[in-house]
């Protein structure tokens, strides 16, 4: 699979809503944040961008939303070049950033009204739109209260509502559910799915593999400024051979020792260790468990627990980046 093949701009009706070719971005100190990113997001779909800390997800979003400029490469949103005609792009996109960019000293309604004004909306049409969004996100009752008194989940909904005020064609959600409790997260997922069903194109970056698995039709995994895998979640999962075996060790062991033990076993592949968690793939998970346990026991490595699972996006992620996904770790802000 040629991951970095160039993709040509072919936007317009039925074409790509977002198309990026060979984006490169370097920061002072020769930090190569993006090293030739190419993306193609079909109109009306949800696209998930996954990656570890500082991989380049946020940088990609910033370039596509005209906040930042690429050193080289081109990007189009709805067929419009983001570097050449940023104002046209800005009218077509909504941005919901990482940190919940709502004005916490203003009321919910004031936030939405200001956002509408900035897009040149006003009068009764804006008031109607604001009421509609408040109702849609269940914020009508809280609308007159100062936002800093709201819950995190409500603030995040207001953030999304602000990004939708001008009825954008493409919505960028940069880690929309980070820091939300499970209930608020499920709520927001449902809303994102409804928006997509209405034909909105959504590009989503996320800390949560489950989120991408649940929401995104297409996923790309980005690592060190490059796209290392792309496809539907199912395609990516089916590339993996067999089941995932996860062994929790009782004590941490010397690097590579435990995986070296599994390397020798038939029907067990791709062993890797991270902390006290040993992972491997097995052609037949259930039948491999006794062999794995016996081998570890023979090597004097204590085992606390073993689980066998069908492949998940976590496994895809691990396979392509060589690291386990840690949702609690913070994405570098740029």
């Amino acid at each position, binding site marked *: 699979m040629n991951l970095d093949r160039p993709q040509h701009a072919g936007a317009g009706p039925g074409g790509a809503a977002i198309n990026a070719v060979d984006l490169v971005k370097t920061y002072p100190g020769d930090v190569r944040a993006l090293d030739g990113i190419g993306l193609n997001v079909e109109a009306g779909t949800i696209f998930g961008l996954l990656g570890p800390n500082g991989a380049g997800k946020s940088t990609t979003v910033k370039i596509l939303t005209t*906040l930042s400029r690429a050193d080289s490469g081109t990007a189009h949103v709805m067929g419009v070049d983001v570097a050449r005609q940023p104002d046209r792009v800005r009218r077509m996109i909504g941005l919901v950033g990482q*940190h919940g960019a*709502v*004005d916490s000293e*203003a009321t919910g309604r004031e936030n939405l009204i*200001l956002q509408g004004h*900035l*897009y*040149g909306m006003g009068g009764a049409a804006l008031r109607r739109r604001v009421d509609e969004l408040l109702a849609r996100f269940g914020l009508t009752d809280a609308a007159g209260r100062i936002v800093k008194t709201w819950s995190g989940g409500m603030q995040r909904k207001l953030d999304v509502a602000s990004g939708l005020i001008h009825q954008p064609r493409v919505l960028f959600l940069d880690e929309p559910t980070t820091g939300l409790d499970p209930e608020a997260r499920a709520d927001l997922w449902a809303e994102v799915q409804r928006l997509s069903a209405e034909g909105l194109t959504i590009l989503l970056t996320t800390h949560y593999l489950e989120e991408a698995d649940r929401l995104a039709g297409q996923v790309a995994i980005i690592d060190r400024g490059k796209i290392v895998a792309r496809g539907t979640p199912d395609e990516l999962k089916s590339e993996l051979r067999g089941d995932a075996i996860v062994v929790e060790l009782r004590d941490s062991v010397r690097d590579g020792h435990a995986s070296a033990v599994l390397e020798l076993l038939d029907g067990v592949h791709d062993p890797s260790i991270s902390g006290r968690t040993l992972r491997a793939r097995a052609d037949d998970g259930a039948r491999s468990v006794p062999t794995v346990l016996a081998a570890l026991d023979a090597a004097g490595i204590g085992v606390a627990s073993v689980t066998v699972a069908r492949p998940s996006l976590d496994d895809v992620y691990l396979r392509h980046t060589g690291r386990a996904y840690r949702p609690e770790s913070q994405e570098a802000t740029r």
Partner: protein
Amino acid sequence: MTALAQTAYLTTRHVRFFLRQPWFIGIYLVQPVIWLLLFGALFKNVVEIPGFTIGASYIDYLVPGVLVMTALFSCGWSGMSIIEDLDRSIMDRLLATPIHRSAIIVGLNLYELVSFAIQALIIGGLALVLGAHFPGGLLGYSVLTLCAMLVGAIVASFSDAMALLLRQRESVIGINTLLTLPLTFLSGAFMPLKLAPDWISTVATYNPVNWAVEAGRDALSSTPDWSFVLPRIGLLVGLTILATAFATRTFRSYQRSL
């Protein structure tokens, strides 16, 4: 037209925030009063110094100085609002909308000037209570306030620019200590320049703060010399435009850093 409307909306946002912070309003109102009372008491007797030829009470001399200094000190903190918006990603949200970049700067600076205008009213009222005379009347006081506002707008733009270039609170604090304080004291704000060392008089000739103080003070006198006042206002207007353009351009530097 749209840029003006966008500016007005953004100014409204800051004014609304200001009105919801009672302690903030308190500080704003008390601060100029302190300057006036403190400097008024401290320098009360300097009018006795030979060569201090204004002939009136020191408070008459002091008001223009305090007004310009208050504008500098209030507007110098303007960049803090930029830092707040940067920290809370509100700036990114604004920059992702199709508004003119200048509207963000001008909208913020206008808010600083609106709140300064309230301070100017308080200073004027208090000065009258303390026995000051404004021979130039309302027109004179308005021209003085305008001069102070222009200096305030210049400093606010520099503060905004530093905030966008360095993106740290320290940069805004730095501009306040390194710029506003020396500029105030290298002017005739509190002491006639002919009583100051020659080098200070020379520096003051090129100091916009001094232009504002002297033009404002002259406008407030019984016989304003408009051929002295207006060119200085012209220079201040020119500098205000340049400083605003400079601050607006720093968005490019900020966006390059993203």
